[in-house]
């Protein structure tokens, strides 16, 4: 392909000339159109400019209806500006500006019928609303409304919506989560949620995220900080990122708070999930980085107790030499693992209880530069630890 063709004049705009397009980079692909999922994403790109490109092949029918947003596939441009014309896609063919015809009688009936609240939802969210209810669906829609494709940490609103029904079912019917103290979580602005950690698999984090999403107004998605171990696991790292969880580097943590997010941390780290049954609900040593970031970002810390997680997969023994040999954080022996294979790792249907404590506003007493003082940071982390332990002891 000639590179001259690839580079249009800097002052030109798409559609000004064929030189901007170059030859077809996808021409050599055989078989079904691999770009089919992205056809709809195209339809959502700022309509005017893209329609100008399409217009070269012929006149475009003026838009007659609001954008049809069925089957929108995610992509940076997918959730951008609403498209001006309704478009229909059939196996890789995009029909620009030709809205599907609706019988007149049906159109009139639709116009005169009272609008059910569900009709305001996007089509994909209507399906979600039928599964989990309208309120959670609306909350998810609100979370994704400001994200265009993927956010800077990999969160995809679409992936979140797809994963949500499973975790909602776990929240409602499997773990039967009860929670209290939501008023202690600030409605907006940066906040660090510091919770105890337990259970072999991090369902405590998932339940805390779902709980905050369902009980905060406006809805907030807690961004849980993951151990780097999880970030290196195939598939897991992608899934966690797409549903909003972030690997705990200093830059990530700092930027999340700068963005005004609610950051969920488990200061015990990996030590929390490998507690044996004799250490249930006894907090392990706290990492202190979250206090540094909270001080720098002037964010309150809300202590949280998650009860139930330590009972979901009680560890009888941790075979540490085996864990070291396998390169795993733990090699647990539980009543069901390894006797029942991987199925034995699944959590027992214990009842969860989540309690949010009074926010600790260290930033009101200490300056941002206090984050540089290890003694202060350690002391404040100790205060958070005691606050979480009190919550656990008070609600068990």
């Amino acid at each position, binding site marked *: 392909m000639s590179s001259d063709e690839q580079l249009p004049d800097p002052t030109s705009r798409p559609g000004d000339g064929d030189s901007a397009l170059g030859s077809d980079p996808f021409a050599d692909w055989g078989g079904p159109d691999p770009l089919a999922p992205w056809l709809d994403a195209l339809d959502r790109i700022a309509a005017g400019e893209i329609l100008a*490109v399409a217009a070269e092949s012929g006149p475009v029918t003026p838009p007659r209806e609001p954008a049809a947003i069925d089957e929108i596939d995610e992509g*940076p441009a997918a959730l951008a500006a609403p498209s001006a014309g309704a478009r229909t896609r059939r196996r890789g063919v995009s029909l620009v500006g030709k809205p599907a015809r609706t019988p007149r009688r049906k159109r009139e009936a639709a116009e005169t019928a009272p609008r059910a609240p569900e009709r305001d939802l996007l089509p994909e969210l209507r399906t979600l609303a039928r599964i989990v209810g309208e309120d959670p669906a609306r909350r998810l829609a609100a979370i994704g409304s400001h994200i265009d494709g993927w956010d800077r940490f990999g969160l995809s609103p679409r992936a979140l919506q797809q994963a949500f029904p499973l975790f909602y079912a776990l929240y409602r019917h499997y773990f039967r989560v009860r929670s209290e103290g939501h008023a202690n979580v600030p409605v907006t602005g940066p906040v660090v949620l510091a919770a105890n950690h337990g259970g072999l698999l991090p369902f405590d984090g998932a339940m805390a995220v779902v709980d905050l999403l369902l009980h905060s107004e406006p809805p907030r998605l807690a961004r849980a900080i993951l151990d780097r171990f999880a*970030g290196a696991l195939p598939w897991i790292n992608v899934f966690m990122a797409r549903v909003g969880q972030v690997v705990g580097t200093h830059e990530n943590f700092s930027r999340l708070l700068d963005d005004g997010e609610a950051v969920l941390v488990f200061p015990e780290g990996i030590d929390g999930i490998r507690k044996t049954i004799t250490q249930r609900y006894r907090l392990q040593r706290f990492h202190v980085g979250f206090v540094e970031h909270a001080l720098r970002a002037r964010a309150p810390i809300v202590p949280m107790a998650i009860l139930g997680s330590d009972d979901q997969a009680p560890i009888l023994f941790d075979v540490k030499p085996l864990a070291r040999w396998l390169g795993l954080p733990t090699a647990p022996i539980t009543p069901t693992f390894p006797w029942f294979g991987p199925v034995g790792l699944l959590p027992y249907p214990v009842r969860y209880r989540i309690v949010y404590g009074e926010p600790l506003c260290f930033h009101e007493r200490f300056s941002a530069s206090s984050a540089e003082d290890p003694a202060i940071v350690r002391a404040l982390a100790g205060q958070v630890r005691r606050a979480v332990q009190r919550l656990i002891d008070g609600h068990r």
Partner: protein
Amino acid sequence: MAGVLVTHADQPLGRRIVKLLWHDADTSRIVALGEGPPPRAFDRFRIGAAPRLVYEQLDHARQRSVAELFRSRRLRDLDIQAVVYVPRHGTSPEGPPVVARVPARTAEARLFLHQALEHRSVRSLVALGSAFVYKLAPGNANHLVEDSPLDLDPAVPAALRTWIDSDMLFQAEMSGRRLRVALLRLPTVVASGGYVYLHPLLEGTGGPRLCPLGFDPLCPVVADKDVAHAVLATLASRATGVFNVAGRELVPLSVLGRWTGRALLPMPGPLLRLAGRSAARLGLGEAFDGPLLRFGMSLDTRRAAAELGFAPRYRIGLARAGDGALRLEAVAA
């Protein structure tokens, strides 16, 4: 600014920068250096007895050629005050991989920095670097600021090591008073039609690529037009230091591969390493592997916004062309 010298102006990104400089009223003269014949795109800029654009053909990695150019009376007369260092492609955009030429990148950076320091009239140097120099922690997305650590692991693939070497070279000269040095760290640069620059896996010709199974790292992208605007903003602001420059879009590698016509073939990690070793033994070139294919990144561009006034102007996505095919387009936001 009086005159600007642009290296590798015959390559797509260099051409883009030259074109934008030509439209900039503050730039009186442009010296475009290239290793090949002058691109046809420059023909219309080189009309008249004393055109604003002068094209010089020279080997950028040859010390004698570069030194003679900088000492020449001709260059002195053109009153060059700024050098825009555009590094060579790791692979030729129009041909097969040219891995053998990659080490020349560090040599070129050293040569042009040295000559810019020595030259009487040159006051500033804007170098384009790569954002793939950062050390990536495990995770689908690492948010990276300019002060994030570089990847100094000795096991870094050669294709990235040259970027890291030249990055450190430019950083070492930033505290000097003689020359203002600004380094723009760029993520994957894409342009209309599917052109890709900098990403070690995607740059070069279209076609399938092997990647590790179970990973889909987040990739920041920037339109080539935005890169040219960032260069112009840096020249105008007279800023020094390191700046992350990125567009608005962040896309997973699999999507970026589809967008740019490079199908990704996921393969289990051990098999991928085996395939890489086999390809090297068979003389098929070095297969790229490393954290970059597993762990993603996003760039913090707040410093560039504050000090350079840079804000991405173009959105990147698929657009339907007149013939009905979908192609990658950079669209004014």
